């Protein structure tokens, strides 16, 4: 009989890595029927005053779960996670949220006049079709193309497209008649 080392490739199960990583592994809850091993701590949050950690389970590529701190017995993994967060350097602050809507669209629809748009883009003059100050600030309803219209603050429009704003105002100029003035002018004529 020859002694041979197991030649099976390592599975996702704990078989091969257990010996290497014993120090870091979670001690399985012996009371439970199934044994789940925590591979890594991914995140931390506080819900209703209780600390929870997002856990990656060994052998499961999806199914990460949030577990309350008190249920866990993997202090090394938690410490490793916290250390990583700290070494995100004191004083440094990560980006918060989106770049104020300047980001590239996450999805795009291909329009019918796709080709036309390419040429017309930038040359198409915008038009103001209305104004309102119900938001507290003077806003223009700016028609872009076909049926799309945007609410744009007047402050912005005045700088971006002053001619468009002027046209809007000019189109709506009205004079009120002042009879005395007219009489005077008539006399001059």
């Amino acid at each position: 009989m020859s002694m041979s080392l197991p030649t099976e490739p390592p599975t996702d199960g704990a078989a091969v890595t257990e010996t290497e990583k014993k120090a870091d592994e979670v001690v399985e809850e012996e009371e439970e029927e199934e044994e789940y091993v925590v591979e890594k701590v991914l995140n931390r949050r506080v819900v209703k005053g209780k600390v929870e950690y997002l856990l990656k389970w060994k052998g499961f590529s999806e199914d990460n779960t949030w577990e309350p701190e008190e249920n866990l017995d993997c202090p090394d993994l938690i410490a490793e996670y916290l250390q990583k967060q700290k070494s995100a350097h004191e004083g440094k602050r990560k980006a918060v949220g989106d770049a104020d809507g300047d980001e590239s669209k996450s999805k795009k629809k291909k329009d019918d006049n796709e080709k036309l748009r390419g040429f017309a883009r930038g040359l198409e003059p915008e038009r103001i079709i209305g104004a309102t100050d119900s938001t507290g600030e003077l806003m223009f309803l700016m028609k872009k193309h076909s049926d799309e219209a945007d609410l744009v603050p007047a402050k912005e429009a005045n700088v971006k497209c002053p001619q468009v704003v002027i046209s809007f105002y000019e189109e709506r100029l009205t004079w009120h008649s002042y009879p005395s003035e007219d009489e005077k002018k008539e006399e001059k004529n």
Partner: protein
Amino acid sequence: MPTTSIGGDERISKFKNKGKDLAKLREKRITECVELRKAQKENFFKRRNISLSSLPEDEALSPENGTVSFRIEDIIRDVNCDDRQAQTRGCQAARKLLSKDHDPPMKKIVDAGLLSRFVSFLSLDDEPTLQFEAAWALTNIASGTSWHTQQVVNHGAIPAFINLLTSPMLHIVEQAVWALGNIAGDGAAYRDVLIECNVIPALLAHISPDAPVGFLRNLTWTLSNLCRNKNPCPPMSAVNQMLPSLMQLLHLSDKDILSDACWAISYLSDGSDDRIDVVVKTGIVPRLVELMNNKELCVMTPALRSIGNIVSGSDLHTQMAIDAGVLSVLPNLLRHPKPTVQKEAAWALSNIAAGPCKQIQQLITCGLLPPLVEVLKNGDLKSQREAVWAVTNFTSGGNVEQVVQLVKSGALEAIINLLKVKDAKIILVILEAVNNMFLAAEKLGETERLCLFVEQLGGLEQIEMLQNHANEMVYQAAHNLIEKYFSDGDLEEVQVDAMQNGFVF
């Protein structure tokens, strides 16, 4: 012909506007104007109601009865029958409906059960027109909400589109790239499914100097969606595959390609240090700094965001940005007319100021203090907030001489004026800065001088008032400051001499 005055007046009054009543003239003008406006409005409304059948047919397809039907029943019938021509006709009609600017009937098409047919058309390599129309229709449905994208995916679109990436017809490949971009853009889940299906090598294979610009634009955008989203971030193996190609794309000159490539880098650098590390190891930082100067806002914005992310990393990462010249570009951006640009620039500055003395010194040397103070004084609230962080970080990491420089630049005066904002967090950050300045003053034995200065600037009054602030931490911090530095009774008149060190103003 003799022109008597009477005759002249008569003629003149008939001639255009002369001699007419001024008020009547105005009335006439106003009425005309209103008529014109009304006429324009009518045209505007009429254009909305153009029937789709008048849209130009850009395919070489001639329908039997001469007009294309856009009725959903006809489309369903056509798509479901066995005749290729009818299928193409129906598919094209659906595509056109789905390409409308206003309210494309996505749900109707889904509910009509057409998606499985469309997906099956994708595999008909000998019917490129049909493939293309189906791909376009599915692209547009996938561009909707998560529900819409899910419908497309559930009908088996992913493997079908990935197969199309090897089509010999470039416009079909491009359409598949677009569709996959929409699916990836839905979120981390589908993104990772696509990555698992090996979409990345198939996409990268199409990057070549001969590729048309429009094609590369779509490709870059789709790649950026594969870099996008966190929780979780894309797998490192995928990131490593994409980075070299992103580098290549970043050296092109088309603004749309550059924009999306920079967004991709901004997503990849938005994470922990190991994420930032793989990005900077490509050597991309100098190019990013260069692109921060690009005249196109759509390029400059993500380049700035990327650099901002990089300097939120380790001191080493930050040094790489400094070595690449970021400090000479930043002043312009701090003075940029667009408030969001100012804000992002101030945020990047605040992170550089959170570094070691050596880097803070570089901030001073490269003239970053004056524009910083300008933002504190004139910026919008969000920019001011970031600038305040910059000041506090500076006072925390800077040595005594550096803090003196900071005060001399007008920063203290500027932050004192910001003590009246409503944001309690910012007030706390300002008070911390003031505290740090006093700590520096202590080392020089100059606390009294600083007290006097703060009082002159109206700061003492502000801080005293803050002892009544609603926020507990604020009034505590304010109180501590007063107790520690301002409670020695009346301040003595200190003669301010011109000295080499110290807080001389």
